[in-house]
């Protein structure tokens, strides 16, 4: 299954050869002997040049995409950096002209030149011209687009296939024996994944949605692939909390749940990811249209039902390809991923599922949390290794002075801000770049930076930023639709920007966003609470809350909040106070809350 045959093209090619053979036979039979021989000897090179010339030239007509642009689009995962389309159109034209000139020269020499000159031209000069244009253009491109990630010749040859008309493949690999995952270092082959996924897909009960709760990352992959193959939409819940899962279940009545552990809320039909009757694995690599809805991630908000965000297969693939190019991946670099973030979180899905699937990589099946477990997972994987993690885990690892045997190629952190000193300490400890992704559940990654050195974020390829009335929108690239940022932004130039802090109302805990107003409303709605406010102190990981509640106890307030809120937003701690520092207009200032916090904490 190494090459997935674009069968229609093969049929056309065979027909053309047969037609040519028939024509030649007719020519040989009907022409005088000398002319027939001439036709047989002289025509093939001319015809080949003409066919190639036609293949390039026909894509230059209005409305069509030039052939070289198609190759480039394939290499860039569907999103072309600025300047590439115009350039590749000119390159297509150049190839068309060269091939036309070669056909004309071969025909001219056949008619008027000596046999020796003709043979020299066709068998020596023509291939040399083609090689010269190919290599010359490659060298020129590296100079002309030196600001883009370097492309290697091997990568370029790799992409000289037309984009498949059948969709974007589930995974890209060299061979079916390649590892797609490792459990405690033991490789799990792509063939096993496809077989398990096909069996699970056949065992799924009817319905359109599946809830993938698997903790083991290989089990998650099986569930995710099976859902795609069975044309189901994978729902990826933000947390393992029962409340969040029950909320999601209420919204979808035809749900079944793929889980590899017990403790799934009752009333949901559970299917195990593996252990089903073997179904025939697919004969071809499964591929899905770019527009197929593939996954739903949720922003928890603080209250009520989690808000769903649908991701198309195309946007997930384009995002993974962009991330891989940023990391400098290619056919010769198969990334080995260790992830501490759940695959159900958008960052986990991008960095630990889509990235290895689309770049011939493999992912560690575990989800190590404690520093010693992170170390064991990293050391069980072969090079080149990347760690996909959060600032919390980085802080724990750096705090432990976690020494690694064997180098990491890189670390990527996301879900909450990574401060420069921590990033620097991690870089020094592991001697590798530590990069940070700025993203959201709605968009996936939007920008990257090397946090130890650079306060500025660089926008991901293909994306554009625009500011209007104090709001900043991001669009293009892998995104399915534009998105308005929840942070204030200062744009340095087209590609680089600085974050000026959250739009005051938003806080983020453990990768989940909430509006403070929303939290406040919940607090004030608790019986016995007269007034109340949440506050996120500078540098804190959790919010505190102040409540004026003469007739309620802390325990009863916390109990009520626990029923209503995602647990990550529960106040640590809750202070009962006599009054909130409200100004005459009812507003509470940050300074007022800061002073109140100092007084309350001192008590």
């Amino acid at each position: 299954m190494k090459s997935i045959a674009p069968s229609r093209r093969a049929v056309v090619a065979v027909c053309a050869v047969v037609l040519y053979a028939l024509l030649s036979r007719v020519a040989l039979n009907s022409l005088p002997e000398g002319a027939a021989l001439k036709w047989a000897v002289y025509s093939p090179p001319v015809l080949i040049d003409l066919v190639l010339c036609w293949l390039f030239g026909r894509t230059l007509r209005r409305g069509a995409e030039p052939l070289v642009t198609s190759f480039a689009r394939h290499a860039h995962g569907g999103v072309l950096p600025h300047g590439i389309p115009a350039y590749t159109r000119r390159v297509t034209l150049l190839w068309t002209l060269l091939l036309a000139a070669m056909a004309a020269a071969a025909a001219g020499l056949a008619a008027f030149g000596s046999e020796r000159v003709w043979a020299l031209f066709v068998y020596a000069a023509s291939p040399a011209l083609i090689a010269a244009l190919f290599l010359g253009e490659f060298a020129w491109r590296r100079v002309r687009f030196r600001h883009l990630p370097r492309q290697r010749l091997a990568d370029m040859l790799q992409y000289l296939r037309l984009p498949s008309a059948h969709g974007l493949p589930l995974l890209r690999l060299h061979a079916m024996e390649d590892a797609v995952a490792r459990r405690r270092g033991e490789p799990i082959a792509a063939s096993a994944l496809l077989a398990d996924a096909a069996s699970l897909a056949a065992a799924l009960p009817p319905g359109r949605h599946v809830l993938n709760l698997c903790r083991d990352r290989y089990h998650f992959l099986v569930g995710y692939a099976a859902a795609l193959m069975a044309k189901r939409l994978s729902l990826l819940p933000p947390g393992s909390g029962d409340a969040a899962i029950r909320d999601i279940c209420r919204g979808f009545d035809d749900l079944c749940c793929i889980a590899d552990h017990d403790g799934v809320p009752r009333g949901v039909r559970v299917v195990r990811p593996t252990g089903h009757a073997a179904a025939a694995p697919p004969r071809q690599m499964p591929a899905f249209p770019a527009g197929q809805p593939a996954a739903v991630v949720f922003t928890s908000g603080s209250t009520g039902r989690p808000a769903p965000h649908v991701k198309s297969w195309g946007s997930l693939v384009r995002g993974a390809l962009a991330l891989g190019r940023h990391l400098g991946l290619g056919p010769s670099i198969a990334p080995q991923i260790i992830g501490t973030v759940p695959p159900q979180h958008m960052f986990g899905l991008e960095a630990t599922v889509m990235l290895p699937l689309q770049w011939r990589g493999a992912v560690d099946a575990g989800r190590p949390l404690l520093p010693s477990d992170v170390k064991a997972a990293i050391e069980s994987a072969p090079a080149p290794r990347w760690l996909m993690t959060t600032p919390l885990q980085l802080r724990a690892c750096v705090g432990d002075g976690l020494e690694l045997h064997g180098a990491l190629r890189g670390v990527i952190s996301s879900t909450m801000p990574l401060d420069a000193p921590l990033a620097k300490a991690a870089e020094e400890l592991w001697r590798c770049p530590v990069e940070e992704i700025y993203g959201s559940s709605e968009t996936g990654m939007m920008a990257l930076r090397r946090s130890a050195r650079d306060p500025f974020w660089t926008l991901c390829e293909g994306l554009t930023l625009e500011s209007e009335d104090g709001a900043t929108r991001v669009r293009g690239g892998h995104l399915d639709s534009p998105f308005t940022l929840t942070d204030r932004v200062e744009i340095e130039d087209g590609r680089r920007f600085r974050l000026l802090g959250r739009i005051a109302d938003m806080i983020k805990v453990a990768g989940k966003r909430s509006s403070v107003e929303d939290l406040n409303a919940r607090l004030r709605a608790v019986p016995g609470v007269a007034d109340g406010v949440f506050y996120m102190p500078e540098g804190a990981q959790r919010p505190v809350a102040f409540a004026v509640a003469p007739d309620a106890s802390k325990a009863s307030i916390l109990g009520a909040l626990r029923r209503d809120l995602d647990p990550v937003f529960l106040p640590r701690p809750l202070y009962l106070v006599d009054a909130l520092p409200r100004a005459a207009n009812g507003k509470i200032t940050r300074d007022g809350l800061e002073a109140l916090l100092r007084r309350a904490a001192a008590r």
Partner: protein
Amino acid sequence: MQTTAFESELAALIVQALNLEISPDEIDPEAPLFGEGLGLDSIDMLEIALAVSKKYGFKLRSDDADNERIFASLRALTAHIEKHRTK
């Protein structure tokens, strides 16, 4: 319900490290620490691991994908630390 001295010590460490809204002796050693019980999450697991490593010079390790087993309850965590400390 019997609470050992080491369990009380660990309970105090947890309450202090996590800014919890309860006193250490309110933690039922058999009750789940995470999820429905005390309502802790994985951020707290890391905090506890860090606090334990600072105080006892011992690095917690789950040896297992299932972190929730060693953090199942105060008693389970205490047993895990005692077992591995002696090594």
